[in-house]
Structures are given as structure tokens and as C-alpha cells.
């Protein structure tokens, strides 16, 4: 079992390493983005940070072999003129790896919030995203499992069919349509809820709470549907298994057999799914955050793209990649840990 875990972990680590390296090289091959709007001092302080991070060389005289100096000119630092040159890309890559492993430094933002730590910006945006997602998960987990159980226990009956159709519709229709209609109906037609999460100013009164309803429920809807389908499928499979038949033949009532045998066993594959769901909380929904004006992680990515802040975009991509890969490995491993059959197999 541990051998398997270690093997998987190493593999994921290398995958992440290669993916991030490729992303890094692709972003760094673009022309260096410099906060030109920040003025000479701003540019200098930004470039000095780049020097500290090991991407740029600072020199008091013109150097040969590094191409033109950055921004094409020298900068006055007191009485001397300094020139900045871009390091070769592989050297930059080595510095980047070093920074991450020694200082967990993912670079600084260049355009959006010049010279601020990229990871810091992301972590700053995280609370809102996590908050909304946790609320939605708290609502959707019990409901999803409940609907799944109801559907499975009434397999083939009207209620099962209705639930199946609803699940199919929710899963088929993309989330932005659900969100649009929620905003259209509840914000514009009925006027019950605010039409945006962040108004830019102080939010007072009931709106401070009401503004959570649309994002939380539009996120929850998809999760509920997903869990309903998954739990129903698992429970249906368990219900038709031999050991449940045995339980019934032993003389257990239907209720007993379902609660003691079927439900417990059907929850086994559901747990990894919950873990994955918990992790994906962090990444947020880009579309939702855009449509409902939430200043979360998902919205940050778009802001970074629109202001052409490659450094921030790179850190953001790294953030998403790590979350995605961690989620997948956690799911795989938790299967092994939770399912007793796999655990037994590992002990031999």
C-alpha cells in the first residue's frame, strides 16, 4: 500500500514539475512585462525585485551578450546609471525553481498590483471564494446524498424518474445559464436579491447576507445533481448485490438491510468524491465570479489576463495545476484507504 502511495506521489510531483516548467517557459518566452505605467521609480523597484528573484541582471555598465538593456535605456540610481538585462531563459528557470523550493516565492505581479507577491495576492482573494464554496458544499452534500438515496430506493418509480430528469437537465445546462436565470428572475424581475456580489462600496443591511444566495445556490445546484447521480448509481449497484440478498435471507428487514449494509457500502466511493469537491473549493468558479462580480480567485485570473500580467497568470496557473493534481491524487489514494478490499490486498 505505502509503495503504491509513494509511487503515485512521486509521479504526481514530476507531472506537476513538468507542467509548471512548461508553463513557466512559455510565459517567460513572451516579452518581459514591465509596469511601464509606474514611472521610472516604479519600473526600477520592479526590476530590482526581478534582480533579487534572479530573472534580471543589474549592471552599472552596458553588457555584451545579453541583448539590449530592458526598456532600452539606463536608469539613474543616485549618481550612477544602471542597466538591466534579462538573464537567459534557462537561468531564469533555475532561479524560479530555487525560489519556490527555498522561499516558496512565486514571483511578483507586474501589472495588476506591481511588485506585490503573486501568491500573496491569490491567498488574499481566497477567503471569499472558499466562503461561498463552503456554504454551497454544506448545502449540497446532504441534499445530494439524500436525493441519491431517495432515487435509488424508489428506482423505476415516478420520484426516481423526476429526479433523474432534473439531474440530467441541471448537468446538461451549463452553469452560466443557471446563474443568468437566477440573476434575471430573483434580482431583476422579483427584485429580492442584489444583482452583484461586490458593489465596490460598503454593503449594508440585508444585502450583506442576501448576496450570498445566488452564488451559493447556483454552485450547489451542480454539486447536488452530481452527488444525486453518483449516490444513486452506487446504491443501485449495492442493492442488487448478492450480500444484500443474503442479508435479506438471513431475516433482516428491508430497512435494516439498507441502513446496515447497503448505505454504508455505497458511501465508500462517495467519500473520495467529497474530498475532491472540498479541494476544488479553492479554485472557485471563474464564470460565476465574473457574472456575479465576486472578487475571488477565479475573477483574479481573468483580471490578470486582461491586464496582461503574465507573472500573476503564471502563479495562478501553478495554483490551479497544483490543486487539480492534488485533488486527483487524493481521490485515488483515498479509494485505497477507504475501501477495505484494497487495503486487504495491500497487506499481503
Amino acid at each position: 500500500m505505502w509503495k503504491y502511495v509513494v509511487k503515485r506521489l512521486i509521479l504526481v510531483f514530476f507531472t506537476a514539475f513538468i507542467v509548471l516548467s512548461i508553463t513557466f517557459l512559455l510565459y517567460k518566452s513572451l516579452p518581459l512585462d514591465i509596469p511601464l505605467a509606474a514611472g521610472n521609480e516604479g519600473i526600477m523597484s520592479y526590476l530590482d525585485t526581478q534582480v533579487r528573484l534572479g530573472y534580471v541582471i543589474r549592471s552599472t555598465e552596458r553588457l555584451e551578450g545579453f541583448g539590449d538593456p530592458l526598456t532600452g535605456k539606463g536608469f539613474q540610481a543616485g549618481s550612477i546609471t544602471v542597466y538591466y538585462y534579462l538573464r537567459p531563459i534557462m537561468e531564469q528557470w533555475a532561479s524560479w525553481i530555487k525560489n519556490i523550493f527555498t522561499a516558496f516565492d512565486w514571483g511578483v505581479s507586474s501589472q495588476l498590483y506591481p511588485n506585490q507577491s503573486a501568491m500573496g495576492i491569490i491567498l488574499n482573494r481566497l477567503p471569499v471564494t472558499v466562503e461561498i464554496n463552503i456554504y454551497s458544499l454544506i448545502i449540497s452534500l446532504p441534499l445530494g446524498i439524500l436525493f441519491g438515496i431517495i432515487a435509488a430506493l424508489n428506482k423505476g418509480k415516478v420520484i426516481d424518474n423526476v429526479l433523474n430528469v432534473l439531474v440530467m437537465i441541471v448537468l446538461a445546462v451549463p452553469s452560466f445559464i443557471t446563474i443568468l436565470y437566477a440573476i434575471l428572475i430573483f434580482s431583476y424581475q422579483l427584485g429580492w436579491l442584489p444583482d452583484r456580489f461586490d458593489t465596490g462600496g460598503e454593503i449594508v443591511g440585508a444585502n450583506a447576507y442576501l448576496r450570498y444566495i445566488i452564488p451559493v445556490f447556483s454552485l450547489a445546484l451542480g454539486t447536488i445533481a452530481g452527488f444525486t447521480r453518483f449516490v444513486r448509481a452506487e446504491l443501485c449497484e449495492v442493492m442488487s448485490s448478492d450480500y444484500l440478498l443474503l442479508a435479506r435471507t438471513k431475516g433482516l428487514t428491508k430497512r435494516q438491510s439498507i441502513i446496515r449494509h447497503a448505505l454504508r457500502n455505497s458511501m465508500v466511493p462517495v467519500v473520495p468524491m467529497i474530498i475532491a469537491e472540498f479541494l476544488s473549493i479553492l479554485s472557485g468558479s471563474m464564470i460565476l465570479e465574473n457574472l456575479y462580480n465576486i472578487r475571488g480567485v477565479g475573477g483574479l485570473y481573468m483580471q490578470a489576463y486582461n491586464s496582461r500580467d503574465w507573472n500573476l497568470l503564471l502563479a495562478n496557473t501553478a495554483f490551479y495545476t497544483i490543486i487539480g493534481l492534488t485533488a486527483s491524487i487524493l481521490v485515488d489514494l483515498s479509494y485505497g484507504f477507504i475501501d477495505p478490499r484494497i487495503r486487504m490486498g495491500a497487506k499481503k
Partner: protein
Amino acid sequence: MEKKIFKYNDSLDNSHEIEISEQEFEFVQKDSKIHDVKLKGKPTTFFKDSMKRFVKNKSSLAGGIILGVLVLISCIVPWAIPSTGAYDVYQYHTSSNFEGISGESLIVPKLFPRGTGFWDGTVSKSNIIFNQETGLPVGYSNPNTIFDLVTRDTYSDVTSQYGTGGYILLTGRNSSETGNLYENPYTYYSYKYDFDFSNDFTLDYSFILPTDNEMNYLQNPEYRISLMYRGENNEMLLYPLTGDYNGSESIEQGTADGFVKLEDEEVKTININEKIKQYGIEKLDSASILIDLKRSSDEDNINAILIKNLHISSTNEEVNAEISKRNIVDGNNCLIQPQKISPNGISRVDNPAYWAVTANTQVAGRDIKITYCDFRFDQYEDLYGEKEITLNYFNINTYQNNGWLEYNAGKASTDKAELASRLTVFSDKCPIVEIIEQVGDATYNPTTGTVSGYSLKCVVSQYKLRGYDNTPIFIFGTDSNGRDFFKLIFTGLILSLALGIGVSAVNIIIGLVWGSISGYFGGWTDIVMERLCDIIGGMPSIAVITLALIYMDSDVIAFMIALFMTGWMGVSARTRTQFYRFKGREYVLASRTLGAKDGRLIFRHILPNSLGTIITSSILLVPSVISSEASIAYLGLGLQNQILFGVILSENRNQFVGDTIYLLIIPTVIFALLLISFNLFGNGLRDAFNPSLKGEE
């Protein structure tokens, strides 16, 4: 003969008994050879069997039919509708080439004839101020476009609340007509009543000082009622009807001061003609009564008087009926209030009954009737019906060159008969319905033979002007760029579907090849290829798209590349599983023993076996391409202005309110319908083609 009784249960658990003797018992197939008898039942193929099972699944069949209908419409519509005017979805029609003719953007959907109230190309308008004079809502000029008109009266002081623009009708509560407003040189306004003094008139009036809580800024009101003479261009004070006329005998305006302090409610009756005769004037045809208010000596205080009652009567019955409309009777109060010098807040419009009041005006009238109306506005009649515009000479020349009409331009004229005689219309396409007048004399250029320099004011048929043969009907309306939404949506849909199918086909091919190699060879090849998949798949798809967009010039190509990067992985994984399943089978082994090469084994033996399952389960790739396209456009990453379904969806995402809400609802409903039917169809197809579900009901 001895008979035995046999008992047996049939499939429904009913027991039967048969009484039979041994001689009667006989084997049906004894000694017969049945191995060379042709099978009676028809053989079925895998495909036929799958289709049979697919058809049995009602919801999938319904999904398939809806999908088929949508695809069929989108195959027909872009080519069936000719590209004239707004039907040309590759052009924007936000403005037109003609002055006074607006563009074709945001026309509401029309399916039924107007008046049905639903989907009839009309917009409901409410709370529009009603112009009593024209009988139309303010801002609307064509009576043909207005119907279901309901008016309702409101009463209000004319304050800045309504003083932000528009016309306010000052009228008595019980009459539709009003006394004219009179602006006198002293820069304040008051009501003015015009009379024909050939009859005897009496004037009863009562004034009231508004109480403090009504108008708390009113102080020391003084009023004056004067008889004015109306000349051609001027007006002169004839006789002060109130108070002592303690000035000179001159009748020059402004020299007299007949102001009276208003003590309390005051009732007076004046016979105007008697007064005139007192003054020595025998007969006056046209004159008016002016009710003036004096400005207070203290500039900051403004005086005003509420006329509680003003009754003017004549001995002549006919005249009486006419002027009684202008009375202010009880409940018909009017506040008269002088403005400060330079009444820049108030400007007069042509008809004195209407004021254009701008903000920051003092109360100029009290308890004034404002008529609002609700109605339905026919956008199609407005944009495609007849309208009076000015056509320039080069438009006329173009029509002449087209052979639609002949017009002998010459001297400017307003005589319609004379103008009509100059016009000969040859074609139905000619938009001119009626000429009203010619503006400017035409100049004939003998060298080029062209006539220029004039324009024609005429009534035109707008749909002809815009190049349509008939009034167009936009089932889904037009979008903000003036494109027929019906055609736009289905053009976008077919292009999106084509893109989706193209991308999916490429992805399926890549996935098949990749998965086949990976699954067939296994071992190290498999491990390396799987790790490569991990790496490509480990990159968040949004990052792939972003990078593609940054590096590529064309966003459509970037979008396709991003889809090619990751789209094949699902197919590849499925193919790999299928290969692991089939590669150890006996028929593969047999073929291999006979010397078949790897390529033959892969593409002739294993792949065809799993192809149906793989492709049917990959059918949902097509709508997912449309979804990603919409997502990209929604996030503002790219694809703007492309005619793709997802892009059209995202362009109209902010149409939450007002008449244009159809732009949000129609594409989202179609999209939801498309995705749901695609899912039903795809899932049904997948289940039908899945061999492991065969025979399962």
C-alpha cells in the same frame, strides 16, 4: 385405451392438465435432420439491433428528434433567407443611409399579427406624457404605430419633479382646454384669457391667499387684473380692472400700477364692457385679460396667488360656451406666481399651453393636470411603415437609374398636384408614396446631363427604402447590431456545430490512434504515453486556452488548438481500455498466428470491434465545444464578434431588463434545449451501442 393425466405449470404459474394416451404421444423432430434447414427468423446485425434498442428508449428518441429539428433548421435557415437588410447577419445595421430613418437594431420579435399582444412586434410603453394637442404621446409622431392607448390624469404642482424635461400640460381640472399662458415683459407669467369683445362680458373672480402649509414661501401677495389690447406685435394695457389706477392717464404698459394687496378671499364682479365704455372705447374685437402679480419689494420673497375661482361669462350664448371652457371653477385652482427676473428655468414652446420645464424651476402652477398614457408601440410600423422624410437628389437619381421612376425636377414647389405630375413611377420597388414638396431648385448640368441640387420632402415606404420586398418579420427580433436574430442564431448554431463536429472528429481520430497504440503495445510504451497524457492533462484547460490566445494571432485558431490539446484524452482513455479488453481474445491470437502484422491487428481486428462504443460515447464532445466557446466569450478571453452560437449567447448576457430581454431568453432556451437533447440522444446512443447492456431491459 388407457389415458394418463399430465400436469404442468405454464409460465404464468397456471396449472394445466392434459389427458393423453401413449399412442397419441409422438416426437415432433424424431429422425428429422434439422441442421441444414434454413433459419426462419431474420438475422440481425449489431447496428440494427442497437437501433432497435435506441428506438425503444423514448426519451432518447425525443432528444434525437429535437436535436434533428434544430440541426435541420440551422441547415436550412442560413441559406433559405435572402440576405437583404437585417437578414444579412454579416453586416451591422445600427444606422441607415437616410436622414431621419433609424437603424434596425433591437426590434422585438414578431410572429403573430399586431394586436394579439404576444409576440406581435409591439412594445408596451407606460407612463409617457400625453400630448393633448396632437393626441399622441410626447415623442411619438406617427399615429399608426400607437394602439391600445389608455390615458390617465394625474394632478400635481409643476415642480422640478416633472421639471426635468418634457412637456407639461397646464390645464384646468375639469376642462381639456386651458387659458393661454401669457408672458409679459416684466418677465413673469400668468394666465391669459382672450376675448372677443363684441359681446358683453362679466368677470367674477375670487382669489385666495394660499395658507402657509400650502405654499409657505408666499408673502404679501399683490395682484392686478388688467385689460390688455392685443395688437399685431404688441400688447398694451387698456384698463386696470382692479384697484385704483393712480398713475397718469397714459395707457402705456408698465406705467400704471393697479396692484392691490390681497387681504383675504376676495370676490368681485366686473362687467368688462362697461369698464371699457367707461374708458371711452366703443368696440374692441380682440383683447385679453391679464392677471399679474407684483414682485415683492424684497427680492427674496416671491409672491403668488391661488386663483380659487375665475368665472368669465358673456351675454352671447355661443361665445359663452366657448369661453366657459377657460374658466377656473372651484377645484380648478391655479397658482399664479411671478418669476424672478430672467426666468431662465422656463422656456416657452410654440403652443403656450405646453411648457418645457427644466430643472430648478420654481413652482409655476399648482394642481395641474398631467396626462400620462400607456400604449403599445408597433416597432415594425415605425421602422417599415410610411414615413415623411427628405430624399436627396442623388437618391432620386439612383431610383431613376434603376428605372423605378422618372422625375422632372425643376423649380421648387409646394403644389402637390403639380409635383405629382412631374413624377412617373414605373416599379413597385420605388419607395416614394407621395411627394409633399420640393426643397430647392434643381440645377441641370448640360455636360453630364445630371440634375442636382434639390431634395424632395416626401412620404416613403420605409421597407422599400431599406431594400425589402415586403415588410420583414423577425421571428426572434433583431439584436443590438441590427441583425435578424433568428438567422443569426441558426447561422451561429450551424457554424458552431460544424466547428464542434470538426474538432470532435479530429480529437476522436487522435484519441483513437493514441489509445490504440498505448493499449495495444502496453508495457513501456503505455507507461510513457500515459505519463505524457498526465502532463498535458495536468495543465488546467483555462491555462492552455490562455496560452494559445497569447501566442496565436487568430482567436478561432487559438481556440481550436486549445481544444485539440486536451480534447482527445477521453477518447484515448476509452480506446485504451477497449484494447486491453480485446487484445487477448482468441480471434486476435488466431490472426496473429496466421502472420498478421500489428497494424492489421489494430486497425482490422480490434479497432472495428470497439469503434461503435467509442464514437457513440464521444458524441457529447460536440456540445461541449459549444459550451467552451460560450465560456471563452463569457470570460472575455476572445472570440468576440465571431458568428458562433456561444459567442452570440455571451454577447447578450446583460439584457436583463426592458423590451430586449428576448435577446437573453431565446438563445439560452435554445442552448439549454440543444444540450439537453444532445445529452438524451448521446446517452441513449451510448447505451444502445454498449454490448454489455444488450438484452437488459
